[in-house]
């Protein structure tokens, strides 16, 4: 098993983006997915950094792919998605729409926002050229086992959500803008104020969710740290690490140590608590009564 870094869900300044990917070039990860997958309005502010980062990461020996948006509606978004196909880099689709723009027979990757819940869908995607699929984070271990087995039969690499706030929902409405009594069209890019999303509590002060523009994330960081053996036995080939603004190099190194056996799962899980917001971890989608549940102590 190895490590894939997913596209950044948050809106960071172009300087922060450059620093983040320069750091990642040194990190022990095999591949990196770049690009804007949450809100097309953000892209003009940082898109110049994408090509630079791709070059830097390829030079450092990483495999690099470009992500599509997770929800493609506007004509501008359709154009942007179609243009992605001209870059020459592998594409990770996060909305099935993107298949309409891929020349037939072009290999592609599939991101966690595409609903791959069963072998039939996996087969259909493989038939269209999918060679790597990051499964939806909602899936339990039993489904992961069945899909990883099907992936092995078809020669499709299967990835599982390994670390990061869970992408629980995406909407036409921008909740960051709504919190500022603005509409999406006049958002003034307020999501940039929260580099890891804006925390949402229940009225009893329970940490619960995080708002990230049109996306709603979990408050907890979902971590597969305690599920590595089960995932390896299932035939999962990679863990997906989703960017966060702080300590991401340490996080990549920790998972890499975990995968090569240099660090115990419980030890790593304990250290992770200090590296994530409020020390909140979860792994209940893989194995537990609900997504928010954490199987560790």
């Amino acid at each position: 098993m190895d490590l894939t870094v997913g596209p950044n869900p948050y809106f960071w300044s172009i300087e922060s983006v450059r620093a983040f990917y320069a750091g990642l070039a040194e990190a022990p990860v095999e591949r990196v997915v770049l690009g804007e997958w949450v809100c097309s309005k953000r892209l003009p502010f940082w898109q110049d950094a994408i090509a630079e980062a791709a070059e830097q990461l390829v030079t450092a020996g990483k495999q690099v792919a470009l992500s599509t948006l997770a929800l493609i509606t506007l004509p501008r978004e359709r154009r942007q998605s179609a243009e992605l196909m001209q870059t020459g880099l592998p594409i990770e689709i996060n909305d099935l729409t993107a298949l309409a723009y891929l020349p037939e027979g072009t290999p592609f990757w599939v991101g966690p926002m595409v609903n791959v819940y069963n072998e039939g869908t996996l087969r259909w995607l493989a038939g269209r050229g999918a060679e790597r699929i990051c499964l939806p984070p909602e899936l339990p271990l039993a489904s992961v086992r069945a899909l990883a087995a099907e992936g092995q039969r078809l020669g499709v690499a299967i990835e599982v959500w390994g670390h990061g706030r869970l992408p629980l929902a995406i909407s036409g409405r921008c909740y960051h803008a709504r919190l500022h009594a603005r509409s999406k069209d006049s958002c003034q890019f307020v999501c940039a104020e929260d580099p890891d999303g804006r925390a949402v509590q229940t009225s009893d002060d329970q940490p619960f969710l995080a708002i990230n523009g049109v996306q709603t994330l979990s408050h907890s960081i979902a971590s597969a740290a305690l599920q590595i053996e089960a995932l390896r036995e299932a035939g999962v080939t990679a863990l997906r690490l989703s960017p966060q603004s702080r300590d991401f190099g340490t996080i990549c190194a920790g998972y890499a140590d975990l995968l090569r056996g240099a660090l115990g799962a419980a030890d790593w899980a304990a250290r992770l608590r200090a590296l994530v917001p409020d020390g909140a971890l979860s792994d209940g989608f893989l194995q537990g009564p609900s997504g928010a549940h954490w199987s560790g102590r």
Partner: protein
Amino acid sequence: MELVCPAGTPAALRTAVDAGAHAVYCGFADETNARNFPGLNFTPEDMAEAVAYAHARGAKVLVAINTFPRAGEQALWHIALAQAEAARADAVILADPGLLAHAAEHHPGLRLHLSVQAAAANPDAINLYASAFGVRRVVLPRVLSVQEITAINRAIDIETEVFVFGGLCVMAEGRCSLSSYATGRSPNMNGVCSPASHVAYAQEGDELVARLSGFTIHRSPAGSPAPYPTLCKGCFTSQDQSGHLFEDPVSLDAMQLLPQLARAGVSALKIEGRQRSRAYVAGVVRGFRAALDALAAGRPIPEGALSSLTEGQAATTGAYAKSWR
């Protein structure tokens, strides 16, 4: 425009047909449909009888098989497809690409509609489903404005169906796992959202508190309405702000938009609510049928006709108005 009405039970289906529905949608009593609630839905025998009842009165029956089949257990969904065809359903409503591929291959005579759970939100995605699987109608996700729906209809060759009344998802449908994050059960996998089995009420001082698997969703002061604790309609706090951060406990009522939807080229209008009572179904179907008849006759659409049937007595036109975003 065709009026497509919900039925959670055979009795509700008959009620909807008698009240003037052009088509009724319903599902089997298992996880294959997105309203998998206790006490609801149809056995295969119910389905065959329901189709016969509807056909005898000139109405269609559309069978929703719109959850995402579970890996290792796809047979349950494949059987549902065969049973829908055996019952002579007029169409099946599907969301999962694997299931669509199976239907196209094994049930070529079955008319396929794309469920809102597939969240096909632009012409390119819709054309892809049409060309890959022969889908004939798409139920549009509730993230689109009327202007966008107009543009979509100009760019596709298949029919569009849009929601006009009832519960309102504020998230892109079929792309939401908020419910399973809190409860372990989701629309995509289990056909339920914020399920009643995971709701607990507690009286705390003057407030009725509604929790979903321990997460507080609402605190309703004595004497004020206590809406069902659907997760995305809950009252939450972020920094110094508290309130309905995602959506107020409102429901959709687009009756006044019928003329615009007709001009937008929409073929069918969908009413949400397979979990609702027969009285509710009868009221909504009659109201919308009257509105459609008024539209056809060039009369104005009646105003406020269904206000007593909207959740919490508050209604919205949702994403159809661009300002909703």
